[in-house]
């Protein structure tokens, strides 16, 4: 039940990404400083995403001796994390903006924890690859 509600909520949020006027429909405009802080958080997540994408390029380019499967796997893992991070950035920004307009608590999220685990796994894989994987 909770899952269905979250899917519905997520689809409504996606519509809000592209329909700026609808965000103004409910609640009242928050203090502009809160909105700017929310915007900076969004930009920080976008930078994280760009860094992950840059890392994906770097793995593909600067580890040419690696076996193709390892190289592609690591690069695709980083790129996938970057895409998720970017999409989540805009979704979280919209949710925070709405919560502030309605005077609700800001949404909590387990995404940072999941991202840390994902990055840790990629880092461990890199260590394993660099120690044992060169010859394949």
């Amino acid at each position, binding site marked *: 039940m909770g899952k269905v509600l979250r899917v519905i909520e997520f689809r409504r949020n996606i519509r809000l990404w592209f329909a700026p006027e609808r*965000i103004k429909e409910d609640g009242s405009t928050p203090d502009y400083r809160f909105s*700017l802080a929310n915007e900076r958080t969004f930009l920080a997540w*976008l930078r994280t995403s*760009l860094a992950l*994408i840059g890392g994906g*390029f770097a793995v593909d380019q600067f580890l040419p001796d690696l076996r193709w499967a390892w*190289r592609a796997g690591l690069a695709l893992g980083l790129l996938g994390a970057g895409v998720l991070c970017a999409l989540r950035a805009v979704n979280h920004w*919209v949710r925070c903006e709405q919560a502030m307009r309605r005077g609700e608590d800001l949404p909590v999220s387990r995404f940072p924890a999941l991202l840390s685990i994902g990055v840790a796994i990629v880092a461990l894989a890199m260590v394993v690859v660099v120690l044992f994987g060169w010859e394949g």
Partner: protein
Amino acid sequence: MEPHQDDRDPGLQPERTRLAWRRTTLAGTVATVLAVKAALNGGPDAPSIAVAALCCGLWLGFLAVAHRRIRVLAEAGEPTTLTPRHASTAVLCTVALAACAVALVL
């Protein structure tokens, strides 16, 4: 131009947000340079030039969003909120850059 002392935010929020946009543009520039380098690595044939041009186009799109937002934030008085359309455009440029990266890796 010196803004009016009275309506100047002591927390410098618009300035900080402006700089955050600049940092993000820089991060995007680094990713784009890596993308163009990756695309042209195997020699300049037609598909790799097309991917490199696409990455540059996406970077220009992001730059346009950032530039517009920075100009709004630089105006005196209370700045308006970031519109979801601008936010989505910036994210779409980022995701499309990642799609180019996937195409280059595979």
